[in-house]
């Protein structure tokens, strides 16, 4: 038995060593989540406009185009649950916060959370989805993220090209600006649809809290390419509009739906994300609208 345990130890030792090295590297390595949270907390007292939502907002709203100091805390697949948690966790540290832009897109009211990404909110934002227990994930980040993910993506990620949380796509990916890509994208989004009642409750609570804190929530829907819009389920689009307008009317908060306007192809990265030029244009438009609100208020 002794010989077996000794042999096993010597055999496992290099693997264990590799594992520990990876564990240290992964905990120490840079990631967009880490970077954004660090910046968000560091600049909290200056933030006047906070942008929330999924990748549509992360890639589509450029804080540089706003007159008020803006920070973009939107992230790929970020749901309303996390929008709310991210804001409320720091709300007391943002004394100048006036507006919170919440991007509500085609799928936003149907996504509770994204299992694969919840762990990042736990690691970097210290926000747990529904108070989930992350005992094993805390013991080993490498295990939780997966070796492949760790080695391939996480360690390779250098400093990201972001500005106040905004992560731009610099060009148009012409190979995916077409109907089949749009169909596939819509299909992908719809495959993740879940029950929406909890999500709407969350949104209601979020708006109530913001209003109590004298912060103006602004609901927005960002533009997508016509190929994408043409492939959307019209019933879902209409239901979304009814829901959002209901909330907007009930709480008397603005809702800016930017999907009706037509924008040239060159402003998009793919069928449902703006590129840097699109983000610039839309952000300017949003800035003007906020100025209008400012004047009224």
């Amino acid at each position, binding site marked *: *038995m002794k*010989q*077996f345990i000794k*042999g*096993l130890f010597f*055999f496992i030792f*290099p*693997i264990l060593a590799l594992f520990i090295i990876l564990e240290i590297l992964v905990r120490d390595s840079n990631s967009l989540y880490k970077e954004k949270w660090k910046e968000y907390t560091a600049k909290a007292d200056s933030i006047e406009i906070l942008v929330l939502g999924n990748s549509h907002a992360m890639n589509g709203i450029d804080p540089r185009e706003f007159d008020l100091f803006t920070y973009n805390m939107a992230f790929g697949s970020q749901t309303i649950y996390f929008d709310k948690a991210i804001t409320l966790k720091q709300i007391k540290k943002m004394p100048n916060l006036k507006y919170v832009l919440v991007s509500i897109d085609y799928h936003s009211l149907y996504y509770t959370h994204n299992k694969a990404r919840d762990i990042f909110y736990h690691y970097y934002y210290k926000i747990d989805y529904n108070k989930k227990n992350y005992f*094993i994930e805390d013991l080993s980040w490498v*295990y939780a993220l997966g*070796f*492949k993910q760790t*080695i391939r993506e996480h360690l390779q990620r250098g400093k990201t090209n972001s500005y106040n949380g905004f992560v731009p796509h610099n060009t148009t990916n012409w190979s995916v600006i077409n109907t089949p890509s749009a169909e596939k994208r819509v299909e992908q989004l719809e495959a993740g649809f879940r029950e929406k009642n909890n999500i709407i409750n969350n949104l209601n609570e979020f708006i109530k809290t913001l209003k109590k804190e004298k912060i103006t929530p602004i609901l927005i829907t960002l533009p997508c390419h016509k190929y994408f819009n043409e492939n959307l389920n019209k019933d879902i689009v209409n239901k979304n509009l009814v829901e959002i307008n209901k909330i907007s009317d009930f709480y008397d908060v603005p809702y800016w739906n930017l999907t009706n306007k037509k924008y040239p192809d060159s402003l998009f990265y793919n069928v449902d994300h703006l590129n840097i030029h699109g983000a610039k244009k839309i952000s300017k438009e949003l800035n003007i609208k906020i100025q209008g609100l400012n004047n009224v208020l």
Partner: protein
Amino acid sequence: MLFNSIDFAIFLPIVFILYWFLTNNNLKLQNLLITIASYLFYGWWDWRFLSLIIFSTLVDYSIGIALTKQKKTSHRKLLLWTSILVNLGFLGFFKYYNFFLDNFITAFSFLGQDIQTSTLNIVLPVGISFYTFQTLSYSIDVYRRKLKPTKDLIAFSAFVCFFPQLVAGPIERATHLLPQFYEKRKFDYSKAVDGMRQILWGLFKKVVIADNCAQFANQIFNNSDDMNASTLILGAIFFTFQIYGDFSGYSDIAIGTSRLFGFDLMQNFNFPYFSRDIAEFWRRWHISLSTWFRDYLYIPLGGSRGGTWIKIRNTFIIFIVSGFWHGANWTFIIWGALNAIYFLPIMLTNNNRNNLDIVAKGKYSPSIKEFLSMIITFMLTVFAWIFFRANTLDHALNYIAGIFSNTLLSTPNIENLNKVILTLCLVFVFILIEWFGRTGKYGIEKTSSYKPVRWGLYYFLILCIIYFQGEEQQFIYFQF
């Protein structure tokens, strides 16, 4: 609890330590620990179905004892049939109830009779087909007086629920496994090292080969209507390696784990894809099930004795029953029948025992004849697996029609072609390792005697498991 889960990675060392360090080599304590650990292992999935295993254990234990006390043949027969009916009754209800009901309704609707009834939403207990056959082997062998019934309930319970092979085999014969529970077990270094090696090989087969192939096999089979012929062929080949990697991988882990506890389980796979004819394939594929059917069904039916028609009948019965054992679906029955059709010409011409040794024994490469025989057998197997994998008979037939369409020479229309190529490369490495290790009991049993080379191979396999692991899939044979 899955073998490739973190739960099992924690469970196994704990049970191992308790087994060797806490029981002080006390046989009764070791058997008790195995029983408790096995119930925990099974209950991790669904504790409610533990009652089925416990009930089955008690019935067969009692019948075994009763059989020794009964001298009258008619009474002994009655006891045996009680065991068979109880065990197959559970299996029939959980596995086949809805199938028979559906077919009953369909048959009557053909006769113009509409029967209004609804099927039940029955959850199939994991591993029921495996432990049912294992306990049946006990009752039958006691009845045949090949085995003395045990009075040790703990040892018998451990035999029925022995966790390494409880849910997906190998289906052990009571005559082989049960006596091991009566023998004093001492830790055996070489056995334990060999067990670890076999676990590693099993994990590689499951996590790297089966799970990666599964991704494409599922994608192609689930969208077969939109795929061209070359893609459909690729899908069938991927499934061929998926099912082999999955099932033989499980068996390897089961056998390896058993060896850590001092047990020897029977070999379940013996490099089946290197077979030169279907008879050889069936001597090398799921050996524990094939031999179970041979011993408890084929031979009692008369085996290959008797006239040609008896031989044909028995061959069809054993293959169809074997197919049906896999699941309540006509696809499995056709898969079995197809294998019977492959097998019959070989048997009727008395060529079924031509290839008893492993191919190209003592050589690096096969002869051209051997190579061609292997390819033909492999292709026949791939074809039969289409029925096994398809959801319905229509699905299988459409899939085959798709293969024989005019798109046979077109390039595969599958997403992520780079990953397809990578997976094929992994399969190629796997075949190479299996080829050079084909004289052993599993692919890496007989590796180099030079330690750095041996350990290098193990580290390579571990890195592959870590880096190339496919999306986790449940073991296919759990559903049987």
